[in-house]
């Protein structure tokens, strides 16, 4: 049977939809179906990925070794100073710990690690087993906090408790323990926090630089290249700018109700969205000079990058792309960016989108575009073949699906090492897409070899 004839699991049928079809409500925000081979991870993964770039904190994973081993230094989250976040610490629970409880081991681990690495705070992640054996992680954290005088925060991230999205919320709750704990007298009115950018390949620096050029002080970047002290002062900013809405909206909402800080959504992927983010911030402060500076900055940057992008976009005209990323908001930006490269998005999906996200996607995409929530390998492979795409945008797990079928690939998740945000990021993105889509290697792959079966089957 050919892939394109494969049936979708009946329990998942309503999680797949097409743009231009009326009346069908998209099903989403569900638990991954057992046996579906989802591309998603778990609650722990969600909280780990969000808190990961807090660079001067200790991140201790309480549980058997796997969860810590698989998250050791896999992110591209850069630091301008401390590198502690790149270490993998685990209580590495053993059978006896599971039987007798791991609280003592956790306590001893924390004390030793804090003494040795001198972190500014510690995050303790609870994994599945800890949730089951019922270690009182919060009380151990409270005790160590008293003894060591730094914030020691329990992150309730047992893998089974929900999906990756619930992990985001657990991470935000952990961060809320820090926000508001230092005085903020010296912070000016023109000030913001950048939420939901993780400084992958230095992207937070690119964004921060724009705001600073506009004359706006960035109080904290949560969590890209983050410092504990900055997060403690984050409540002094006038505005929160939320990029990754899936992970950080909860934190922004809490900060709004606790400290009266309003928030706006933004995206820095693509020229259009980056410019809009800068204008929106200028509009918020309602300061003509600021707006003027934003305009000048955008004009200057756009003039620099457009000629570079043009070369690529001409070569990419009419090529087709499939997008499967973690958050739906990123998918919106990618569709726009691909459009700028003269490419059509024919498949789009996310791991954590909600109903309104999928409505937006449906409205954005051309008729017939496949829209999918929480997909799996077989579905993605099927859609690649069905739509005969030239490019797949996803993460490391999706890469071999594309490559095996002879399709170009662009990594757009937390593990990438090339900055794709901001104006210069769009140049990098265009170059990467161009390099993969127009590579001569594809002429050798079976999918493009249908007429040359003379010597090889």
């Amino acid at each position, binding site marked *: 049977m050919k892939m394109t004839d494969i049936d979708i699991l009946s329990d998942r049928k309503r999680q797949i939809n097409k743009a231009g079809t009326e009346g069908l409500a998209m099903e989403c925000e569900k638990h991954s179906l*057992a046996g579906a081979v989802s591309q998603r991870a778990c609650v722990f993964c969600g909280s780990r990925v969000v808190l990961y770039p807090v660079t001067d904190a200790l991140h201790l994973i309480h549980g058997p070794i796997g969860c*810590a081993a698989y998250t050791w*230094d896999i992110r591209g989250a850069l630091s301008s100073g401390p590198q502690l976040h790149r270490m993998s610490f685990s209580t590495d629970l053993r059978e006896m710990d*599971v039987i007798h409880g791991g609280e003592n081991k956790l306590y*001893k681990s924390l004390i030793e690690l804090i003494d040795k690495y001198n972190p500014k705070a510690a995050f303790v992640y609870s994994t*599945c087993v800890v949730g089951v054996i019922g270690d009182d992680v919060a009380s151990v954290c409270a005790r160590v906090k008293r003894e060591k005088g730094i914030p020691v925060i329990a992150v309730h991230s047992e893998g*089974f408790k929900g999906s990756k999205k619930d992990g985001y919320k657990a991470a935000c709750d952990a961060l809320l323990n820090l926000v508001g704990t230092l005085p903020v007298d010296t912070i000016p009115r023109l000030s913001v926090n950048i939420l939901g950018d993780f400084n992958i390949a230095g992207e937070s620096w690119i964004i921060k630089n724009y705001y600073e050029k506009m004359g706006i002080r960035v109080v904290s970047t949560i969590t890209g290249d983050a410092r504990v002290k900055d997060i403690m002062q984050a409540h002094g900013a006038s505005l929160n700018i939320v990029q990754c809405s899936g992970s950080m909206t909860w934190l922004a909402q809490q900060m709004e109700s606790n400290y009266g800080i309003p928030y706006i959504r933004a995206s820095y992927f693509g020229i259009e969205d980056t410019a809009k983010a800068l204008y929106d911030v200028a509009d918020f402060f309602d300061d003509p000079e600021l707006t003027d500076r934003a305009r000048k900055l955008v004009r200057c940057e756009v003039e620099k990058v457009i000629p570079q992008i043009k070369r690529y976009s001409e070569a990419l005209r009419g090529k087709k792309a499939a997008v499967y990323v973690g958050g739906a908001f990123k998918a919106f930006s990618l569709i726009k960016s691909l459009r700028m490269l003269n490419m059509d998005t024919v498949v789009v999906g996310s791991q954590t989108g909600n109903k309104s996200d999928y409505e937006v996607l449906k409205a954005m995409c051309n008729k017939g575009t496949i829209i999918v929530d929480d997909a799996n390998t077989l579905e993605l492979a099927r859609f690649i073949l069905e739509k005969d795409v030239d490019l797949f945008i996803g993460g490391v*797990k999706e890469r071999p699906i594309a490559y095996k079928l*002879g399709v170009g690939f662009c990594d757009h998740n937390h593990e990438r090492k090339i900055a794709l945000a901001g104006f210069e990021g769009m140049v990098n993105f265009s170059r990467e897409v161009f390099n993969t889509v127009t590579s001569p290697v594809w002429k050798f792959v079976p999918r493009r070899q249908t007429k040359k079966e003379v010597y090889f089957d």
Partner: protein
Amino acid sequence: MTKINKVIKTHTSTRNACKLCAPLGASMVLKGIEQAMPILHGSQGCATYIRRYVIGHFREPFDIASSSFTEETTVFGGGENLMRAIENIITQYNPEIIGIATTCLAETIGEDIQLHLAALAGKKADLPTIVHVSTPSYKGTHMDGFFAAVKTLVRKFAVKGTRINKVAVFPGMLSPQDYRYIKQMLFDFQLPSVVIPDFSDTLDGGSWQDYQKIPPGGTAIDDLKDCGRCCGAIEFGLSISEDQSSAEYLSKSYGMPSYKMPIPIGIENSDEFFSTLCTISGHPVPDKYSMARMRLIDAYVDGHKYAAGKSVALYGEEDLVCALASFMSEIGMTVSVCISGCKPESLRKAMEKRVPAVAASARILEDADFEDLLNAIEESPVDLIIGNSKGYTVSRKLSVPLVRVGFPIHDRLGAQRFSLVGYEGTTELFDRIINAIIEKKQESSDIGYLTW
């Protein structure tokens, strides 16, 4: 040299682990069985993280299903989820074998897999063969998961019968290239074989016209059945306990001779493998291997001065470290530090058996992590580090070159093609090691001579 026999643990936590979890090992094995599909019984994250990790090494698809526990599942049990997972896997992948590996979570809540399977069998006919392997990570490393899965398959499938002219081979966690080479060697001895597992094609295949749900290749079920009738069983690994050993199991239950030997890296280890093949097959060593051996000796001679007296740190799975230590002692390098995340005494015992002189002089750390490696090298500096990609941070910090060997190799291309075993694999590794030494010397030289 100071000899430290007993390691006093100075820390409670693990800091940059030198091991992975048991379900990863079990999943690797199932990927080497024809038309098999693994299900990890537990949270979704375990399957996804392991997939991501293995894909980084092999750069091939690596589908693993999960029974995707929820909070309710954790409280009330995973039977429903497991049945659903099995049904959905059959619908999508239609495998001949389903391997269930129970994660820490499922093990802790005490899932009774046999009970769930019996319930499923009552509800549904025409099920594929289902095997279960218990892989709680709090009980061991990825190697324990690997050996347990192999043994589970052997126990499940091996049947008694008339002896056949086949040999059962258990190579352990080597590269697809090594697997291909091992099969070639057996073939050249005219020795039909059952290699368990066999991911030489499934984890290093070609480009596809249509998506292969389960990549073609792997040990066939008929071959698995045959392993009960084989004329001998070869197993690479001196650290494998009697309890874990598939070769010893076959020997005990089916009466065939078993040959437990080191991974054939280096001349002496390879010689042992070849002489075993001579014994089992009754054939002399084919000329091409005698030639390969001579070329390897020639390479040793060409490179011996570069290697002379250089000290090295080795880390990784205990049997890999042990085999590498043996190889190092052949080429005049001093093994200063050996580190593994394995259980206590596992590496030491294997080394005492195989390389007693090295075992007596080297610093051996078991149940160790990469901070231990860093500290050990800081105390007794080395010229070279050999192990997987995870030693990169230590290598960079101390400016000591790293030769990448083992699993995982995330930061270089070709991990699936790197070869270690036999005379040819050893030659390839030897060249890489000597070239790393030359490169370091060249780069740190003010003049930068070309050496010849």
